[in-house]
């Protein structure tokens, strides 16, 4: 079951943003997230806003999705006005973007390029399922302007993949990486999940080694979260599989950091490691650095100049609104100064670049010596940077910095 959207203020049907949002538009980096809400089957742990063919029902289809997405790109242009707004990053995520014909993704990219223009050094990523992507697909994508690919590898251990309901053959991952390299992708990233019920520390090391054997430019490693409403949560409740264990997750995080750093990948965000600064995912940095982006697609979130808004969740409702020429935004949230400050603390502290001290208020600053003494943060110039222990306790650090 896809998780629920947050509550917010109503958003106007034409999508108009408050004036405050357009101030400084174009000065901050700007990007697009394109959500592709389709999957072949639903994985047991997944609460993303994604739909299998059966779940989709009438009113929306994979075939017509490209049209809907392009319509939203055009609407974004109308809403944002004719400012010079070259797009620095585009990210196709899901769901499973590679379930769409590759031409659909490149068509959406072309529409973005048409409406806004792409920056010279634009980063265009797609997530790809090792199962549903082929060498020719990757060639079409590369030719259409995509230059970064992130494979949902998750694990190299068959029993772990099975528990996750992932259907791919582990051997398919290195193959897909090779195809991507051959097709000319600049950056290849692998996504991993640790802490799956039944996964041993040794299993996790096998996955890490397997990932590193493909020599990726970038790795994301996420602790499995048992989300409410998922099949996995029900299995846990029925006692069929054990709940994730925080100590186990901590051990595996430490193992990941060791293995990745050993292979020359440095952390730059709590769950992300890159070969070098150029290999960091610039799109994700957009989120963490308070830049602007437009999220296309059902349930996608956008942020423009201190206004967060998010689209209606169901693909059919999303398509219907756009077909009527209306904004698909369901609700929005105007962030006041303090809220923006709070967000800066909770996002920037997660980065290796750290959080500028100046963002803290007096009470937050007063907590710093204690955090340093406890070995949770170090002071690097005027910035606070999490230690390894601090990364594992980042939420506690945030609570101390925002008392």
């Amino acid at each position, binding site marked *: 079951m896809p998780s629920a959207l947050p509550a917010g203020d109503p958003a106007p049907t034409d999508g108009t943003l408050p004036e405050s949002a357009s101030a400084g538009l174009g000065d901050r980096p700007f990007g697009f997230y394109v959500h592709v809400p389709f999957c072949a089957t639903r994985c047991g742990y997944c609460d993303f806003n994604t739909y299998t063919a059966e779940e989709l029902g009438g009113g929306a289809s994979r075939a017509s999705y490209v049209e809907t997405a392009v319509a939203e790109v055009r609407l974004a242009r109308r809403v944002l006005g004719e400012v010079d707004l070259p797009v620095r990053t585009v990210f196709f995520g899901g769901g499973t973007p590679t379930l769409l014909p590759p031409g659909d993704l490149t068509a959406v990219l072309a529409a973005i390029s048409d409406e806004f223009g792409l920056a010279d050094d634009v980063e265009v990523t797609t997530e790809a399922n090792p199962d549903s992507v082929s060498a020719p697909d990757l060639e079409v994508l590369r030719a259409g302007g995509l230059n970064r690919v992130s494979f949902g590898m998750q694990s190299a251990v068959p029993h772990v993949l099975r528990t996750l309901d992932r259907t791919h053959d582990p051997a398919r991952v290195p193959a897909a990486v090779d195809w991507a390299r051959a097709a000319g992708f600049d950056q290849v990233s692998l996504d991993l999940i640790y802490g799956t019920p039944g996964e041993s520390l040794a299993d996790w090391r096998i996955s890490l080694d397997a990932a590193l054997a493909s020599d990726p430019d970038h790795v994301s490693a*996420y602790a499995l979260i048992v989300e409410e409403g998922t099949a996995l949560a029900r299995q846990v409740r029925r006692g069929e599989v054990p709940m994730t264990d925080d100590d186990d997750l901590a051990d595996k995080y430490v193992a990941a950091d060791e293995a990745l750093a050993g292979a020359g990948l440095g952390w730059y965000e709590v769950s992300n490691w890159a070969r070098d600064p150029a290999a960091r995912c610039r799109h994700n940095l957009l989120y963490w650095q308070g830049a602007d982006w437009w999220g296309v697609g059902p349930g996608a979130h*956008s942020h423009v100049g201190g206004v967060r808004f998010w689209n209606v969740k169901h693909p059919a409702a999303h398509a219907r609104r756009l077909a009527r020429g209306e904004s698909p935004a369901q609700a929005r949230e105007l962030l006041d100064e303090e809220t923006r400050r709070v967000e800066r603390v909770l996002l920037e502290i997660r980065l290796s670049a750290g959080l500028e001290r100046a963002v803290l208020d007096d009470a937050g600053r007063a907590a710093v010596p204690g955090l340093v003494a406890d070995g949770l943060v170090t002071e690097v110039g005027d910035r606070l940077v999490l230690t390894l222990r601090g990364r594992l306790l980042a939420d506690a650090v945030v*609570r101390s910095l925002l008392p």
Partner: protein
Amino acid sequence: MSSKSAPPPGHTDPAILRNFCIIAHIDHGKSTLADRMLQLTGVVDERAARAQYLDRMDIERERGITIKSQAVRMPWTVAEGNDEGAEPGDYVLNMIDTPGHVDFTYEVSRSLEACEAAILLVDAAQGIEAQTLANLYLALGADLHIIPVLNKIDLPSAQPEKYAAELAGIIGCDPDDVLQVSAKTGLGVEKVLNEIVKQTPAPVGDADAPARALIFDSVYDTYRGVVTYVRVVDGKLSHRDRIKMMSTGAVHEMLEVGVISPEPVKAGEIGVGEVGYLITGVKDVRQSRVGDTVTSQHGGAAEPLGGYKHPNPMVFAGLYPIDGDDYPTLRDALDKLQLNDAALAYEPETSGALGFGFRCGFLGLLHMEITRDRLEREFDLDLISTAPNVVYQVTMEDGSVHEVTNPSEYPEGKIAEVREPVVKATILSPSDYIGTIMELCQAKRGQLGGMDYLSEDRVEMRYTLPMADIVFDFFDQLKSRTKGYASLDYEVTGEQAADLVKVDILLQGETVDAFSAIVHRDAAYSYGVMLAGKLKDLIPRQQFEVPIQAAIGARIIARETIRAIRKDVLAKCYGGDITRKRKLLEKQKEGKKRMKMVGRVEVPQEAFIAALSNAPSAEKPKK
């Protein structure tokens, strides 16, 4: 049948007045029977009716129990040729619905003073239970006529014949005299009303004598000030009077006189035998004390009526605001609650762990829990309560004596003797459980005082038990070991010397005074192990290791460790997660507010409550 022209207050011939209360064990259906009477007499119409109409407080409605007695005036016309043989005509009934829980026995006993008869209600599926007997004895002590009634005869499990015999055996009447009703369906209730008219003696008093009225309840109302409930014995009280409180001689202007029917109805006056209310503009119930006699300022009575014994608090616990800034709010809130609850006692105290708070005295655990609930709800407070305890008398070898209401004040040094309060407990149970109950009572240091068979298969067992055990888990254990069949009533009867010790709990080597408890030496070790284990489960992991120790003096008797938390971070935080993540942070901050910092350790409220909750959650004593 309801009357169109009900006799007005102040002009009602005592001969047609019938004052009665409904008493029973908890949950036997008193308030439901009252509902049917309110409807049959027409004072509450179908439209306004709701179940347990007289349970007006939120907390009563939520818990489905009565806490405060309620008096209602109802007109009733007895028809010609009624089956009961009651004298036809118009009557005025004053009914008082009372609580059944043992903590509120004092509510019952004062209600009795306003009545000439009591309906002793017994659930026909349960039979006589401990509070049935306790309340019966109270009513007999107040010289009331008893009208035995079996309720819930609609239940398939009802055994009216068996329990009519049991009831008759206890009261000393004929089983055929036991009335049978279903308060739920209304079956038999009209008959009960006619029987009340027939059996209840009319009140007697001297209409021409100086006014004398007994205060049986006194309630603070935000809008009207103190509302005083009285039963007039002699003379009359008129809204033009100035009245005098006989215990203090204080004189008050009378602003309003009236009766409750079932909402307040103003009247010019109330006379002999009538039950009503007075409003004098007084703001503090202590100026209008329950048990006092009201008379007129001029030509007043010389002799007051007999009063009541004021209830003493039996159970003590510390109440602390989680947020220290709320201390003044808590103090004001206690002041306000005490206006309506003379049994609530409190005085300021300080705890090393919990800061500033109050040591509060309650009648029992339910009283304690309800008070805490009301404080949190009505005054928007977050409170921590320490484990309940009783009062100990500690005599030192040098002869000095300390009264300990708070375990952390247990004296150091050479102790000659410790005395603890004991209760006389009455347990009613099917005879199958005699062995089990004896075992339990022995484990709790009880002494069997006697045992009687109420009927072939039901016994009454009388035990002397340490009050401290009643305050802890005795009732829960009694219930669970007898599959819920046994019932318990108790009263404090005295004290005894006992071999008691103080068990302390240390977090990170520091004693947390709020966790200290006084227990019997033989039970100290298992108590320490139990509590340390429980705290280990209740206190969340912190960023550092937290050792928990239980100790008697300097001797450690149990030890546990809460391991340090190693992971507290959300793995993912992308565009769509930010709003949610921020809201989660807000929620976590709220949660943290409900934690108490003990040294560097964040201790959740539940730890303080549940620490001793082998000790009862007091809401259990229902049923």
